[in-house]
């Protein structure tokens, strides 16, 4: 009798232990989710920009393209912005009113609004440049899963480059993140994508 009871207790113990283990295993795995799923990326923010305060909330009804970079960048940033200038030139006047490209500088130390204004204008007059304090930029980039960090090459004073993510983000007319644009995406493809979001009923 005692032996039977002991066996039952032992069995119950195993069941409890297994349940705890499988639950913790599930909890451990649960936070691993796909990057850039629309539910997790995005959100409203407000930043000082080259055309007054840019508040994403005020852009409802427009498709917004966000790109995070820095003006010192000799490569990805100018390539992306010149591609966007080409895409923008493919839109009609009415379509242009429904889309806004914004370049957000993560190089808060060197990029001030005055410099950003000259920089974005070089590519397209319609573009907006924005930046803010390091803390504020950290907050916005976190919302979109953008990574960046300064890199100081050895033996060089007063010189750094910024490692950064190179994809852009499409925010729909409803203010929700839709999809990314890879830095080397074909301009015709980007144009088509954006046109679909512009035509979407909001």
């Amino acid at each position, binding site marked *: 009798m005692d032996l039977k009871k002991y066996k039952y207790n032992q069995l119950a113990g195993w069941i409890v232990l297994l349940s705890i283990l499988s639950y913790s295993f599930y909890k451990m795995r649960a936070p691993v989710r796909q990057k850039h799923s629309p539910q997790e990326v995005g959100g409203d923010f407000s930043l000082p920009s080259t055309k007054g305060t840019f508040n994403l909330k005020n852009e409802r009804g427009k498709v917004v393209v966000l790109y995070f970079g820095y*003006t*010192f960048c*000799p*490569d*990805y940033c*100018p*390539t992306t912005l*010149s591609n966007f*200038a*080409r895409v923008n*030139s493919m839109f009609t006047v009415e379509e242009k009113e429904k889309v806004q490209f914004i370049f957000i500088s993560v190089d808060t130390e060197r990029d001030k609004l005055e*410099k950003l204004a*000259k*920089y974005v*204008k*070089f*590519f397209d007059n319609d573009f907006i440049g924005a930046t803010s304090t390091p803390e504020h930029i950290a907050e916005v980039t976190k919302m979109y899963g953008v*990574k*960046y*960090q300064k*890199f100081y*090459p050895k033996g*060089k004073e007063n*010189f750094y*480059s910024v*490692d*950064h*993510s*190179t994809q852009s983000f499409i925010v729909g007319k409803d203010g929700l993140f839709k999809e990314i644009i890879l*830095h*080397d995406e074909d301009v015709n493809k980007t144009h088509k994508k954006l046109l679909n979001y512009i035509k979407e009923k909001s």
Partner: protein
Amino acid sequence: MKTLTVLALLFSTGTFAADVNIKNARVRLLPPTSTTTAAFMTLENTTNKEIKLVKAHSEVCQTTELHNHFKVDGMMKMREVPSISIPANGKRMLKPGSFHIMLINLKKPLKLGQKVKINLSFEDGKKMEIYP
């Protein structure tokens, strides 16, 4: 639309133009606010031995470096490289998002159509002058 590259007219003077041909050399024209830009080109190796580009120099900027991009942790990292290899009987493209010659701290903003003299040095000691 603005043209963002200064198209190249190339005079490869040089002692060994036969070993390496340079095509489509250009310097990216950036807004006057930018003090840094990049030069791109295609290097063709006409020999049956690997050739390494080890140094670039230009008077238009304070520092000239050979660079490449590496994708790490979802970020593009631009780093200086000691050399750029051109495979035997092959070619190496210096292009956006890849190998490039970085012109750092331009003394004056570049103008559209301006020819930028760049001196290239190779591992075997040979030199070349290009004018993208």
